[in-house]
């Protein structure tokens, strides 16, 4: 048992944890961040994806104690002043959520992709999200949502093919 301090979506949170606790359980059970989903528990589906110090990780493969003194961001942390991020609006517009269970992870991962690469190609999108599964199969709608945000972005476009809107 030990106390850890983790900044979650900008807010410092302290809790007593056991050394063998997963970051996934810490976030869901101790902090009640329920957008982080528990599904496969073995790093295959990616629905427990969060940002740890600015990088996407699968929280079922990370110990809670490893996050001590570090910063975690979940999908709740990408909105500003209650305003949905562009990718969230695009997910709504394109019906990119079916049952919605995987949606927080996909929103977080595509938001991060568009931040680092505003005009991703099909291959970039497939590679960046290869660790995520949508069991309803909304991949086409997600692609449309990403393409819309990319098309609206004023960021410099690489002189190569980027996602075309269907």
């Amino acid at each position: 048992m030990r106390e850890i301090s983790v900044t979650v979506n900008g807010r410092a949170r302290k809790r007593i944890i056991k050394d063998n606790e997963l970051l996934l359980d810490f976030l869901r059970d101790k902090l009640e961040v329920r957008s982080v989903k528990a599904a496969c528990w073995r790093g295959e589906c990616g629905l427990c994806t969060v940002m740890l110090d600015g990088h996407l990780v699968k929280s079922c493969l990370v110990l809670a104690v490893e996050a001590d003194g570090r910063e975690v961001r979940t999908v709740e942390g990408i909105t500003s002043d209650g305003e949905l991020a562009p990718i969230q609006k695009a997910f709504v517009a394109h019906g990119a959520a079916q049952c919605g269970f995987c949606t927080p992870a996909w929103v977080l991962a595509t938001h991060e992709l568009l931040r680092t690469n505003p005009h991703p190609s099909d291959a970039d999108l497939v590679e960046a999200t290869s660790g995520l599964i949508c069991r309803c199969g909304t991949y086409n709608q997600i692609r449309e949502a990403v393409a819309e945000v990319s098309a609206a972005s004023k960021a410099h476009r690489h002189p190569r093919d980027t996602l075309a809107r269907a």
Partner: protein
Amino acid sequence: MSFGSPYTTLPDFEYHKPASLEEVLQLLKKYGDEAKLMGGGVGLIAFMKERLMSPGHVIDVKEVRELKVLENSPGKGLTVGAAVTLSELLEGGVLRKDFAVLHEAIARVADPMIRRRATLVGNLCEAIPWVDSPPALIALDATVAIAGPDGRRSVPVSDFIRGPVDIDLGPTEMVTAVDVPHAKGSHSAFEKFTGGSEFSLASVAVSISNGGKNRRARVVYGSVNSTPVRSAEVEEAIKDGITPGSIRKAAELSSEKVECVDDVLATAAYRRHLLKVITTKVLRRMMSQ
């Protein structure tokens, strides 16, 4: 390595986060068999969920400065510290020029999120027969640098992996790095077949060096047996050049001579067929480069 695990929790353990190699060795001396080292944790956490491992102490080496070394110089070759992740190795494609076989073997491991956590040394130390980095490292004549209470030693990767989940490492020792020699004029490539599985059913790592008079070829097959298998026959077939004729011969020999096993992923007969396919594929690509 699970197939439908019911486990979602980890066994009880005490977590340690040493800052130096010396501290790691002290902890190993104190806890020995009771301790497991954790790099990215990808394998260890999975093994612990399965209760295939239930260490009383987990020693996280991610922040150990000495283990973060990543050097690549024409004279010394490549040194990859135990805390270097696969993502860090792939960054900027620095391995593509001289160590293409290693780059290709790790570029398609799992997904970007896992590659950001997983380390090359961790990948190697798991010694899972279906993992891609060991055959690539053996094809490059890589060695494992080990530190322990009696000092340091170095072992070729081919000897380090003794069997499935069995490595040449004492309970108070640790792997500090993998060293890959720089071979002049070398040319290498990797190919695998997964058939949609999370692991390779068969893989091949090829390295040819033309430096000086000593032209040498290494052909190592992964995932077909409990440890990577080097094939002297296939090496001999391509030693004097990769031509349509030598490719045909190499493909036939791979299927005939390389010992394959039946396991949960594939039958030996299917693997013998795959060897022919991937040997042809990798050599054709090398011929056209």
